[in-house]
Each structure stands twice: as C-alpha cells, then as structure tokens.
C-alpha cells in the first residue's frame, strides 16, 4: 500500500526547460506591463506577478468576508423592523449582501483559491474583514446610519474599483455598486423619516449618526502617510485614489446630505479648505481603529462565533448535498454505460 503512494522525486528541469520557463515569465511580465500601461484588464488565465495575485486575493476575499460578516448587524433587526415594508426592505438588503459575498468569492476563486479555504481562514480568525462590522447595531436608527454612512463610504471606495485592473473583480463591483446605491438611499430614507418623526425618533437618528460617523470615516483606511500597501495597489491599477482623497470626498457628500436630513455630523471641525479645494474633518481616533482591527472591538468575538456556529451547524447539510450529488452522478453514469 505504502509503495503505491510513493511518487518519484521530480527531476530538475533541463537547462533548455529552465530557459523556456524564464522566457515565458519574461513574456508574461511584458504583457502584464503593457496591460497596466494601457490601463486595460487582466483576466484569470493571463500571466500575472505572484505578488499581484496575492494582493488581489487578499483584497477580494477580505471584501467578501466583509459582506458576509456585514449581514449580522442588520440581520439583528429583521425580526423587530417597525413596519412590514421596512422589514421587507431590510430582508432584501441583507439578502443582497449574501449575494455580494457570492460574487466576490467567485471572483476570488478565479485566482485559484477555493471558497471553502477562504471560509476556513475567516472562521479560524486568519482573514480580515472590514472593522466597521465589529460595532454593534443598537437601535433601529442604526439601520439608517449603516445604510447612509457605512454603505455610503463603501460606495465611495467601490465605485473606482469598477475599473480595477483585474477583470472579474471589476465586473463584480459594477453589479455590487448598483445595489449598494439602493442600500444607501434606503438608509437615508430611514433617517429622514425618523428625523421628521417624533422627538424620540429624531433623537434616535442623531444618536446613531453620532456613533457611526467616525468609524465610517475610518473605513477608508489609515492616513496616506501610514498606508504601506496603497502605492503598489495604485501602480497596479487596483486602487485609483488615495485613502485621504476618498475620505475627503465622502465628508463633502455627507455635509450636503446631513442638512437635508435635518441632523448634524458629530464633528465641529468639518470645513472646506479653499486652498487645497478639499473637505477636511476633525481628528480620528486611529488608536481605536487599531484596537478593533487587532480583535479588541465591541463585537469581534461575537461576529466570528456567529459565523463559526452557522458554518458548523450547516456541515451535515453540505455533506448531505455533496453525497447526494455524487450518488446522482454515479447513477447517471451507470445509466449511460448501460445504454
């Protein structure tokens, strides 16, 4: 038995083969550089630098994990939504997020990583997801603030990603962005309704905006002088604008919209800088950001445990589906053989 498992030690490549491999790499790199220079797209079967593949895989899988973990704070309010219409909208929204996770895992799979492996990494705590989802959704108004601020920030981040150099990622983002803009509008609408409602409702809305504002701003990542990976991602046409640039644009949008809402941003230092022509905001607590990122946020353990629980509880279902599919395939093959 053991002997059957022994495989021969691979022979070293011949000098000709080595030369051929190096030549293929050089040709691949030349084509890749050409694509980057033209600002065109790399597709799954194209040659790509190992670091490019690794960076994309990390970014896309993190993005997918964020969608999946991001379902939880909102799913928390499905059962208590205060009207049937709101319940339907919220259900549809959380369901969309599962769909986004599916597109993104599929895009990541084109880079050679199976979904199971990504899910295992998430559950083992080896993979990251957006820190924003480690904050709790405490009131109904959080459904509004998450839609307006969190999805709003996500859109600012994601619209440029529709032009990301990796084809499957860019295409997934086009679809996701369309749905995200619905999500943001529904969040805005929830807040608008609350703001124009009873004093208790308006207070609920303001409290939620106060809590989600700074974490939403930090979704764009650390300041540019503290963002080591940004430069390479921009050179690869994955990232188009710097963290601070996107954050500034986002603040400008929120300033306009918060007026319509009849609410305020919890930041007395927001202003438009006439010299730089950019929006500026007050200081952000990057220590808190790092703490949450390092696993010490309000809900990190809870979010991961919930995902682990669903995954473990569902194991027997996935096994059954796989076993059934295998049996069906065997039956089908036997029928073919008999005929």
């Amino acid at each position, binding site marked *: 038995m053991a002997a059957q498992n022994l495989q021969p030690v691979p022979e070293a490549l011949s000098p000709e083969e080595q030369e051929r491999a190096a030549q293929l790499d050089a040709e691949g790199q030349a084509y890749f550089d050409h694509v980057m220079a033209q600002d065109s797209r790399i597709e799954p079967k194209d040659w790509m630098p190992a670091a490019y593949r690794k960076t994309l895989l990390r970014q896309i899988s993190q993005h997918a994990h964020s969608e*999946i973990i991001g*379902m*939880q704070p909102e*799913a928390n309010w*499905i*059962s*208590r*939504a*205060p*009207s*049937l*219409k*709101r*319940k*339907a909208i919220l*259900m*549809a929204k*959380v*369901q969309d997020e*599962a*769909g986004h*996770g*599916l597109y993104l*895992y599929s895009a990541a799979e084109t880079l050679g990583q199976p979904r199971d492996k990504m899910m295992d990494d998430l559950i083992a705590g080896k993979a990251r997801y957006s820190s924003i989802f480690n904050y709790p959704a405490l009131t*109904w108004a959080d459904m509004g603030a998450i839609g307006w601020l969190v999805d709003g920030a996500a859109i600012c981040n994601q619209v440029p990603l529709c032009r990301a150099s990796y084809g499957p990622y860019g295409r997934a983002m086009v679809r996701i962005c369309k749905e995200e803009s619905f999500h943001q509008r529904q969040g805005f609408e*929830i807040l608008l*309704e*609350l703001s124009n*409602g*009873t004093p*208790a*409702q308006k207070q609920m809305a303001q409290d939620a905006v106060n809590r989600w504002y700074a974490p939403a701003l930090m979704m764009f990542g650390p300041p540019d002088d503290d963002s080591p990976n940004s430069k390479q991602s921009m050179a690869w046409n994955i990232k188009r604008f710097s963290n601070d640039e996107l954050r500034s644009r986002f603040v400008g949008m929120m300033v306009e919209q918060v007026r319509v809402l009849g609410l305020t941003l919890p930041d007395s230092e927001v202003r438009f800088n006439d010299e730089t022509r950019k929006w500026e905001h007050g200081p952000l607590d990057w220590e808190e950001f790092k703490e949450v990122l390092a696993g010490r946020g309000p809900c990190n353990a809870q979010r991961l445990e*919930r995902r682990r*629980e*669903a995954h473990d*509880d*569902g*194991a*027997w*279902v*996935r*096994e*059954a*589906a*796989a*076993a*059934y599919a295998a*049996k069906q395939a065997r039956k089908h093959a036997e029928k073919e053989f008999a005929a």
Partner: protein
Amino acid sequence: MNSESVTTPETYTEAHAAETTGHGDISVGVAGSGDSSASATRITPGNALRPEDIALEVRTGLVKPSEDAAEYALRLGDDALILAQRLGHWISRAPELEEDVALGNIALDQLGHARSFLSYAAGLDEKSEDDLAYFRREHEFRSAHLFEQPNGDFAVTIARQFVVSYYQFELYSRLTQSTDATLAAISAKAVKEVDYHRDHSAQWILRLALGTEESRARIIHGLKLIWPYVGELFVDDELTHRLAEAGTAVEPSSLKADFDRLTGEILTEAELEVPQVPFAPGGGRRGKHSEHLGYILAEMQVLAREHPGASW
C-alpha cells in the same frame, strides 16, 4: 359575499383597466390562473401586484372586503407573516450562502403575500397592514400552528417548508378562481412564487433523505415533528363553508387529496414514509395558538409598540 357584489376576475380587470392605482395591468396577475408554471421573476415590477396597490385601493374605497373575506384574508395573511418572521431568522445563519439567499427569498415572498392579504383585510375597518401586524394581540391572530413551529435545525425548517409550500400551492391555485377579485389577484401572483418554494423544499427533501445517514435521520425526525400540524390545515369550519358556497374560497378539506398525492410522490422518491403520528387539534383559526406565538409577537411588535402612532 352576496350575489350583487360578486365580481369575476374578468370584470374586475375591465373595471380597473382605466384606473391609475399603480397596477393598471392587474390582468397579468388575475389571468394567470392557468399559468402557474410561468416565472414570477419574468413579470416586470410595473405589472406586479404590490401590497401598496391594494392598500391604495382599499383606502380610496375602490375595493372593500366583505366581513367573511376579511376574516379569511387574515388567516392567509397571518400564516404567511408568521412564517416570514420564522424564515427571516435564517438569513446570516444558513448552512450555505446560497441558502441564505434562497431562504431569504422565500421569506420575502411570504412577507409580500402577508402584506397583500393583510392590507386587504385591513380594509374592513379602515386600518392598515401595520395596525394588524403590530397592534393585534395574540388571540386576535389567525395563523395555524404549523406556521408557528420553531425553525429547529435545517431539516425541521425544510420539513415545514415542504408541507407549507405544497399546501399553499394547492390553495392559491384554486383561489385564482375566487369570485373575490382581490383574493384572486393576490393568489395569482403568490402561486407562481410558491411553485418555486415547492421546488426548493422537494429538492432538499431528496438531498437530505438520500444524502448521508445523518441527514436521513434528521429529515425523518423533522417530518415527524412537523406532521402533527398538517391536520389543522385541512379543517373546514363555518367560515370556509360560507366562502365556498359563495365561490370566494374553497373548503380546506378539498385540498387534502391533491396534497397527499403530490407530497406522497416526493416522499416515495425520497424513500420516506408519511409519518404515522396523530394530528394535534390546532385552533389557530379561532385564536387558540401554540406556546410559540407569544414570543414571536413579543419580538416582532416590540419596537412599533414602544412608539405608538409613529411612522417609519
């Protein structure tokens, strides 16, 4: 419903064709009685019958349910609402992402049906779907016990879905012929969606029954837990008797043979037997509920009741 106020689906369509209540093309729904294999997703949003359209018609006095029809709509609406509430819990907890999407979809369909039925029922005394969902007390609900049963594990949920979807398909198919045009229109839309729910549950019955030893044991157990509540679905009473006479609805008992035959076919294919368990007496249609409903309502209604009169 007396004979003077009877409208057929056809006259309803004609009478409403010129109205601008939002679903001018209601014929898509009403004419669909023989078209249950059509894809629900192929209907464009502009043509779909939305709960808001029904609410608008009720509010503007275009339609008003008879007392019997309103009570009946309450039953169907409460069944769907309580089930949607149950299924919604799976979103973010399903065994696979694909099932988060699928169970979420089914929950959304059920919620949509609930909203339509409740909007119609609410027309009896100028209330809204939310008045009925959030401000009725436990004994005022009319859901059958089956819909109130806990999700359990995935097998229990699938067993409940299996019974519900085959029951609702038979019911809504027949209600497309109702002399009550609104019930007919809601059912015509719902039956297309419930057809997908049947497909979903039947496929999972087969996978679980013929998958692994564990999944087989679990689905057998799940069906056994759910089956006692099948009986209540097919019990006739004075209301269904009057509605059947008027052609507004059908006697629940008349659905039983087709339900048994079609679920039996799937169970046979899955090498399962109909669970040999006694039926529970039920009582949901008279406001006598399972122990579970109180908890479901407590959670569902808490926020709305904290802010009475608020709009959301």
